[in-house]
């Protein structure tokens, strides 16, 4: 019966191992939550930048419908080379020098951006044209992409594609 001596310590050590395992799982679960939140925020920012790119391209279509149509008729494949945030100083999204940049800081410059990222028009295609007596419309397909640098060196990207019909002569926006 000497082999049963010390059984209590063995039982306690087994218990210790199971508690350690439980703690390990709990830590992992909390770490996942933190990572998930960071990913959600990064993905959300990429989504809004992609939507910004899409709006930028649609704005040009609505303000310059005739010019855009003429460009495609002349054989253009990339008539909008400037729908890219990095090409416009005021659209460029680069992080401010300070990590504690905040809108609540008096006199903060809005030219800086609290996030780092960029957007661009990936493709624009003239898909159809309607030259009726009273209706002249062009159908375009737009595809944009955006990327954001998140915390911890993670990069998030998103893309949006949309089809839009624009009146060739009245596509411009009113006052």
């Amino acid at each position, binding site marked *: *019966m*000497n082999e*049963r001596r*010390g*059984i*209590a*310590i063995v039982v*306690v050590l087994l*218990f*210790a191992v199971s*508690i350690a395992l439980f703690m390990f799982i*709990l830590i992992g679960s*909390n770490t996942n*939550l933190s990572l998930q*939140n960071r990913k*959600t*925020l990064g993905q*959300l*920012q990429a989504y*809004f*930048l992609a*939507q*910004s790119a899409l*709006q*930028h391209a*649609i*704005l*040009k279509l609505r*303000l*310059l419908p005739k*010019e*855009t149509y*003429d*460009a495609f008729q*002349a*054989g*253009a494949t*990339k*008539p*909008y*080379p*400037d729908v890219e*945030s990095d090409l*416009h100083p*005021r*659209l460029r*999204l680069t992080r401010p020098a300070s990590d504690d940049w*905040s*809108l*609540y800081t008096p006199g*903060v410059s*809005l*030219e800086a*951006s*609290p*996030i780092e*990222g960029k957007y661009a028009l990936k493709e624009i295609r003239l898909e159809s044209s309607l030259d009726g007596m009273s209706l002249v419309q062009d159908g375009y397909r737009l595809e944009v992409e955006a990327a954001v640098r998140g915390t911890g060196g993670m990069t998030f990207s998103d893309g949006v594609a949309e089809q839009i019909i624009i009146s060739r002569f009245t596509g*411009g*926006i009113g*006052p």
Partner: protein
Amino acid sequence: MTTVRLHDRPFRAFGDGKAGFTFVEIMIAVLILAALLAPVYQFMNSAVRETERFYVEAVAISQAKFAMDTLMFQIPWRAIRAGNPARFEDPKTVPVVRTLLESALPRMFGSGIDTPTPGVWRGDGMLTDAKGFIYRIRLACLDLDDVELAVDVPGKGLRSFLPKDLTPKDADGNHTVMKKLVLEIRWSLLKGVDPLRDPHAKALHLVGIKSHLDG
């Protein structure tokens, strides 16, 4: 024949006197358990705090998504006016736009957005969640009136246009066609504490460029 008297070892055993735990074993076991449970208790405490931290972070992200979605796709471009904080006012005073602003803005920014002028709101408010955490939400809007719009026509080259060549002045007297929207949500990890008074408050930002697609 050997006779065994049970009362010879009364506290050691029920059978042969060698089974069961010794006092020393029990003491060591108790010590190990105590050493083990103290950090477990501490860890469980911090885990509860961490879970709350992730909860408020998730609430802030969700609120930021709702606010930015509404700004980018629902609120008319002309009603978002430049400033930090931004101002909400429809220069055309269309009743349905006013109703939309009255309904959406408190959900986006919470309380504290009213101004003395009817029909004008500030993009700066405060929300309190079901658990009592306080969030400050602010929107800044920057008019981008000098972004060039170019079209590359083969054979004719790149033709650039400024917004002033393409649109009339807006309600603020500018030829703006794009606005930069910066949203900040700030929160404290302490219940009931205003994040603007907490030096350890957390914050997140979302940025969007809204183009003039109204009308």
